[in-house]
């Protein structure tokens, strides 16, 4: 059967990664992968995906951020239960960290295949920028802050930052892990403890964020990769961005450790969150299609496909039983942290899209409006956490 798969991976590396899925599917099964790519972020793709499912003409499989996004679809019985595949392939044993599988599980049943791990908690630093400014490349957040005036004097932007909401909200998340500490972070994000959010640990985060805001004031790019480009070219000192950024450094021919430095957890708390992408399978009437869906699910989790896919995508595989020899420096750092178990669940899994949306709104405003004080922002932040569901 022709199995249509929708996703929003349309850039070069992403498309190449998807192609690995398609190739494996076409070669290893009797079915055919029909690509339904929609560019833009989830905001563009999601209504399309939901409409298709609601309209009774669903696709065979679709990308969705796992976590809470799909809960309602599952409750409505619109998504296929693939527990049998997971049991047969023993996912429980191989998926690492296991939280990835948990977020695909509702009432003990598994509804999605996690395909990769992305982590947000990185800062990328430009060696050239610091050289030009005559200061050493920082090794943690404090040093980074301390070096900022020197950079500015040299006509550089200490912190590169794009305009998109998710970048700003993400950067704040990274800072809160590094500055407020893991316990406080957990209290806020897992327990939704508004008191902690309003408390002194988070006050530090907001103060730091005000500082960061000043450092990023002259960064006028829109897209995240344009911001990354500023780090690559030495116009900016650093950028807080997820692990996907290193793809850009690679394309530019830069070498980790020589041309740039990556610090997980801003060099303070070396932990990474384990977000990532997952595929869901809308329920279909045709048993043939169901069979194909399950075959695809199984295939996506298989070792060979995981390796092929993640190498192209630049993300970490979801299986603990894979060695990635070809991985670069930063990726290896990530793998090590992963192996050590210093992991946190990602915001996607903990907060509803609505809450995240509100946080993004807050962060967008906070980062772009210098008159927005730390106190006000923290108050609002605590309120959102308090009302989170």
């Amino acid at each position: 059967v022709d199995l249509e798969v929708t996703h929003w991976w349309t850039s070069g590396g992403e498309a190449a990664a998807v192609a690995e899925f398609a190739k494996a599917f076409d070669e290893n099964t009797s079915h055919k992968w029909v690509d339904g790519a929609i560019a833009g972020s989830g905001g563009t793709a999601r209504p399309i995906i939901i409409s298709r499912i609601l309209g009774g003409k669903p696709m065979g499989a679709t990308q969705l951020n796992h976590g809470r996004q799909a809960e309602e679809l599952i409750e409505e019985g619109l998504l296929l239960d693939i527990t049998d595949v997971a049991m047969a392939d023993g996912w429980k044993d191989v998926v690492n960290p296991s939280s990835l599988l948990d977020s695909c599980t509702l009432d003990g049943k598994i509804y999605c295949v996690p395909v990769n791990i992305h982590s947000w908690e990185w800062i990328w630093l430009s060696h050239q920028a610091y050289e030009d400014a005559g200061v050493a490349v920082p090794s943690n957040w404090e040093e980074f802050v301390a070096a900022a005036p020197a950079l500015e004097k040299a006509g550089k932007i200490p912190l590169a930052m794009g305009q998109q909401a998710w970048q700003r909200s993400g950067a704040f998340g990274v800072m809160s892990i590094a500055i407020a500490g893991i316990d406080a972070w957990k209290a806020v994000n897992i327990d939704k403890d508004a008191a902690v959010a309003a408390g002194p640990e988070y006050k530090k985060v907001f103060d730091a964020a005000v500082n960061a805001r000043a450092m990023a004031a002259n960064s006028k790019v829109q897209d995240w990769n344009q911001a990354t480009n500023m780090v690559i070219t030495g116009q900016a000192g650093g950028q807080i961005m997820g692990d996907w950024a290193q793809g850009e450094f690679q394309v530019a021919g830069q070498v980790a450790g020589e041309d740039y430095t990556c610090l997980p957890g801003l060099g303070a708390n070396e932990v990474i969150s384990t977000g990532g992408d997952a595929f869901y399978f809308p329920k279909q009437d045709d048993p043939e299609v169901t069979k194909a869906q399950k075959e695809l699910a199984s295939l996506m989790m298989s070792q060979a496909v995981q390796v092929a896919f993640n190498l192209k995508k630049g993300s970490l595989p979801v299986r603990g039983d894979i060695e990635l020899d070809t991985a670069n420096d930063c990726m290896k750092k990530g793998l090590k942290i992963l192996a050590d178990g210093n992991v946190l669940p990602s915001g996607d899994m903990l907060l509803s899209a609505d809450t995240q949306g509100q946080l993004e709104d807050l962060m967008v405003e906070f980062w772009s409006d210098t008159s927005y004080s730390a106190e006000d922002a923290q108050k609002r932040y605590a309120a959102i956490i308090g009302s989170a569901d």
Partner: protein
Amino acid sequence: MLYGVLIVMALYYLLPLYVMVVTSMKGMPEIRIGNVFAPPVEITFQPWVKAWSEACTGINCDGLSRGFGNSIQILIPSVFLSILIASVNGYALSNWKFKGSEVFFTILVIGAFIPYQVMLYPIVIILRELGLYGSLWGLVLVHSVFGMPILTLLFRNYFSSVPEELFKAARVDGAGFWGIYFKIMLPMALPIFVVAIILQVTGIWNDFLFGVIFTEPSLYPMTVQLNNIVNSVQGVKEYNVNMAATLLTGLLPLVIYLVSGKLFVRGIAAGAVKG
């Protein structure tokens, strides 16, 4: 003086087009270093080729050409049906008033102000119940519905300006509702049809949201590829390809505008002037 103002205004309107054309013929390195207004040092048509036949959408790398056929396939029936419905509406509203007809019309005009995002889900559900969801005809229907307010307004105004006596003469001659519509009104309505066609071609050709929400990938219009080319969040932005792609996508409505400019003004004159 008069011409001076006109020429300055013309420059303002032409500037973006110039930028698009110029950029689409530059190589990427040139774009990075130069400014947007500089003419290309080395003219290249590679971006056009790429936009048309090589740019990737997911794993399909056949550029805009992939959606072109679909766009045409969507465009023709949508334009046809939406104009047919709207013209019949306008005709009925101006010549065959019945109790409440003006109320429906008023609702229709207010409908033009509803942001259509709001209606996505209910329409999905309606189409599902009609069994039209995901098909070409479902999309055609959606385009007809959303084109209806403005088009009906134009047609109504136009047909109101046709002398009532003509309509009476046709009734005395024994022509019925449809007879009068097809044999008398349609042949006289060329200018307003041109206007309607232009508005609809533009709207439908440039539509992205409906095309992608109410159909399946095999029917995705060209704008989906355009969106994919232009909106790829990650990776380097190939501005030259983007511009080439946008120009390619806009070509059909542009040509229609240029060809039918005079008729357009005439039609507007007939359809818009009477409030």
